[in-house]
């Protein structure tokens, strides 16, 4: 946790505030600066940890989604482009810009959080600093412990399905049940014994971990960056409205 000199919970607060800013923002000017700052930083840091190819694929999917949504839901105003089969109006450009800026703001800030901390430290920090219920922290921590095990289960189920001439992965409602049932069945057995084991080892009487650590310079820098971006967003909006 002390690796980077700041608490992962500070990064969580940063990311959550940025997401709230994306919800509040109703104009391109309001979102522009925080979106560019978080987008550039987040994608820069994220490419080292998550991989550039995955991030580019993510960006293409989201930009495509924003464009489809804008054409479907906001195709109003003056006509900018007439393609014959479809007219692109000014509303599409504004809606596309708004949604794309929100995407860069939200995903960028989440990437900053994920790149500068890892899931386990983040969960620990959320419990000790932000005092999230220990039940939530335990479930989340156990979920991450389960990932490799359930990935192995999924592979085995996929092999069994393939041998029976079924698709290995499907979101078709009809087939989803046949995939969910064995996956849950194995997970259920494992969870049952893991739960019993944790109770035997005194999960219920476990003392809550509380951190008394003061904010470090790193934490203060995160909060300063957060405040600066929030202020800039509101001041830009105010300035444009006044002049």
């Amino acid at each position, binding site marked *: 946790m002390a690796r980077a000199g700041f608490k992962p919970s500070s990064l969580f607060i940063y990311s959550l505030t940025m997401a709230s800013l994306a919800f509040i923002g109703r104009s391109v000017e309001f979102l522009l600066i925080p979106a560019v700052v978080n987008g550039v930083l987040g994608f820069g840091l994220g490419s080292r940890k998550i991989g550039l190819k995955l991030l580019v694929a*993510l960006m293409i*999917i989201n930009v495509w989604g924003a464009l489809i949504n804008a054409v479907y839901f906001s195709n109003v105003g003056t006509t900018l482009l007439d393609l014959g089969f479809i007219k692109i109006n000014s509303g599409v450009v504004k809606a596309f810009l708004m949604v794309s800026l929100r995407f860069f703001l*939200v995903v960028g*800030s989440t990437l900053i959080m994920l790149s500068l901390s890892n899931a386990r430290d983040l969960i620990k920090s959320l419990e000790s600093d932000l005092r999230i219920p220990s039940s939530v922290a335990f*479930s989340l921590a156990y*979920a991450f412990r389960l990932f490799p095990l359930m990935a192995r289960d999924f592979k085995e189920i996929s092999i069994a399905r393939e041998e029976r001439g079924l698709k290995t992965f499907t979101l078709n409602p009809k087939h989803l049940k046949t995939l*969910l049932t064995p996956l*849950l069945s194995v997970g*259920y057995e494992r969870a049952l014994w893991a739960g019993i084991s944790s109770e035997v080892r005194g999960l219920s009487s476990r003392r809550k971990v509380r951190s008394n650590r003061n904010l470090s310079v790193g934490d203060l820098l995160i909060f300063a960056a957060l405040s600066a971006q929030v202020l800039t967003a509101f001041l830009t909006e105010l300035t444009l409205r006044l002049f």
Partner: protein
Amino acid sequence: MSVGSRKRSVRYTGIDLALLAVTAVVSGVIFTANWTFYYVIEAFAGPIGARLLTYGLWFIGAPLAASLVRKPGSALLGEFLGALVETLIAPQGGITNAIYGFAQGLASEVGYAVFLYRSWSLLPTALAGFLAGIPAVALDAILFEVVGTPFEMTLWVVAAGLSGLIYAVIANLAVKNLRR
């Protein structure tokens, strides 16, 4: 909880928490995969088709957890934890996933609360799945500018709700098979 008491215990044991973790992993992975399906289907089937076919998969954490754990709050925790896992494994949607998960989980919880947490059968599960569609469409309007006429909005809520209902029933049946 005393034997024979009608009042159900709300204390979560280690087993309940471990079961919630299982549903969080399953639903977190489904939530992540569903983004691509949603955008592809929306391009071909339009907003109503996309909502009908894919939205329910984003609400599946609540009925899955509630059918498995059967305790007050399990629907909210199941959906919220699934959304948190989604946020931490893939940045698509970012931390807003957690906000969606909390709102959808809360709406699904109402479905079980209406029945005073006495029934975990198909009816409350279907209601829980349906109700999750309301906050999903509302949050889409705020965040993704997906706003239509009141008639269109009603259609989207109904489509998202029906999708939630279908997948909630599937989740309930999958868990029922498991409990046999």
